[in-house]
């Protein structure tokens, strides 16, 4: 691989990274909002969220990104491919994150809430100061786990023509006629990235464990 191929590869990695990063940055709080809405037991809203999570779990990203990119203009929302890709990944990861958050909310000890209320905290205050910091710590390993799944599923966005870390290997091979080196290089980059997340997840898991001691 020459210099040009190498910088193309890095550009592809950058595309994968920033699109995933935005999806994570939006998908994590969105998942929390969905989980809170669902636990609030508002009749219709709760069912809609259950349906959304169920669909999100079952729909391949390839199918979803094609659907959003091609169908949105019909409803008067023409999307450029990057926006379509980001929206797709957000919709997908938020569904999974909602389940992680929900498990943490359900498992949150009642005694913790009572200690906060007994100390004179209002609902918003104890949510912000007592509950959120704790469910954040207990959810984080699961959320990071979902991040690795998001990154592993992200090559789906190549199908609408985004040149991400996977797709860029086709581009490089079209010039060099040697597909194997860029593919191996891209695979190594993915593995380095994901193994970093896996190590982070283990560390966070230990921290979450301490909290429940």
């Amino acid at each position: 691989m020459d210099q040009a191929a190498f910088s193309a590869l890095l550009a592809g990695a950058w595309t994968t990274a920033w699109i995933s990063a935005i999806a994570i940055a939006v998908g994590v709080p969105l998942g929390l909002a969905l989980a809170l809405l669902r636990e609030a037991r508002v009749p219709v809203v709760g069912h809609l969220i259950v349906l959304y999570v169920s669909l999100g779990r079952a729909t391949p990203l390839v199918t979803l990104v094609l659907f959003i990119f091609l169908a949105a203009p019909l409803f008067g929302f023409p999307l450029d491919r990057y926006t379509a890709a980001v929206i797709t990944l957000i919709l997908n990861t938020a569904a999974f994150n909602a389940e992680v958050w929900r498990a943490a909310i359900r498992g949150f000890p009642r005694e913790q809430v009572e200690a906060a209320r007994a100390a004179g905290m209002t609902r918003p205050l104890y949510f912000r100061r007592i509950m959120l910091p704790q469910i954040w710590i207990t959810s984080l390993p699961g959320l990071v786990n979902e991040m690795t799944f998001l990154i592993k599923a992200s090559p789906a966005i190549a199908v609408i023509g985004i040149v991400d870390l996977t797709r860029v290997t086709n581009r490089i091979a079209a010039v060099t006629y040697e597909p194997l080196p860029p593919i191996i290089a891209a695979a190594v980059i993915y593995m380095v990235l994901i193994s970093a997340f896996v190590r982070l997840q283990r560390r966070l898991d230990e921290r979450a464990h301490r909290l429940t001691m």
Partner: protein
Amino acid sequence: MSTLVVEVRNVSKTFAGVEVLRDVSLSVARGQTVSILGPSGSGKSTLLRCINWLEEPDRGEISIAGQRIGIRPDGKTLMSDRELAAMRARIGMVFQSFNLWPHLSVLQNVTEAPIHVLGVPRDEAIERAERLLDKVGIAEKRDAYPYVLSGGQKQRVAIARALAMNPEVILFDEPTSALDPELVGEVLTVMRALADEGMTMVVVTHEMAFAREAADEIVFLDQGRVVERADPETFFNKPSTDRVRQFLQRYS
């Protein structure tokens, strides 16, 4: 202005068809320590939890320093979350299972509510928290997190946390029941000191020696009813009901 800090009038509470509290009345004057005794399941925790409205009584009234809790002055509508919180800020509570906030350090556990509920300036809150931690004998652990503490240390932090709010009264729900026997003493020592200083306290406990020495009054609950109410001397030496005699035989 009444000197009664806690006033419970004819409170009843039913859980799933079972009457857990039946027409219970109780009053605690400023500076008094009242011990609530009774067999397990007799409604002691429920009574305590009604006092700061963690449980809502079905009937009866509860007032804190002359102000009714849970119900607005009109006598009908329920207090808002905000109004209740303001009332609870004046009532300390110490739980059997400590319930320290595990994501906060010892010092932060003590300063959390003063800063965010009462709006005490941070420096002032820290200074006061340090004094209180010193008082309960745990100053050297100020930056530790709860998971490294022993049960006795946790409970002393929980007491400091309650004191930090400058409450009118502190409610203790079996504060030593979850402790290993060798750790009970350190917590009781702190509680005795508080009683001596004139803190108003309501203490549910199975520690008969503590009740005998530190309490001004004993209230005995059985099956949700106040069966006996007496000063410790009378209660332990000349109980007037068989029920109390049986109980005392088992626990002392």
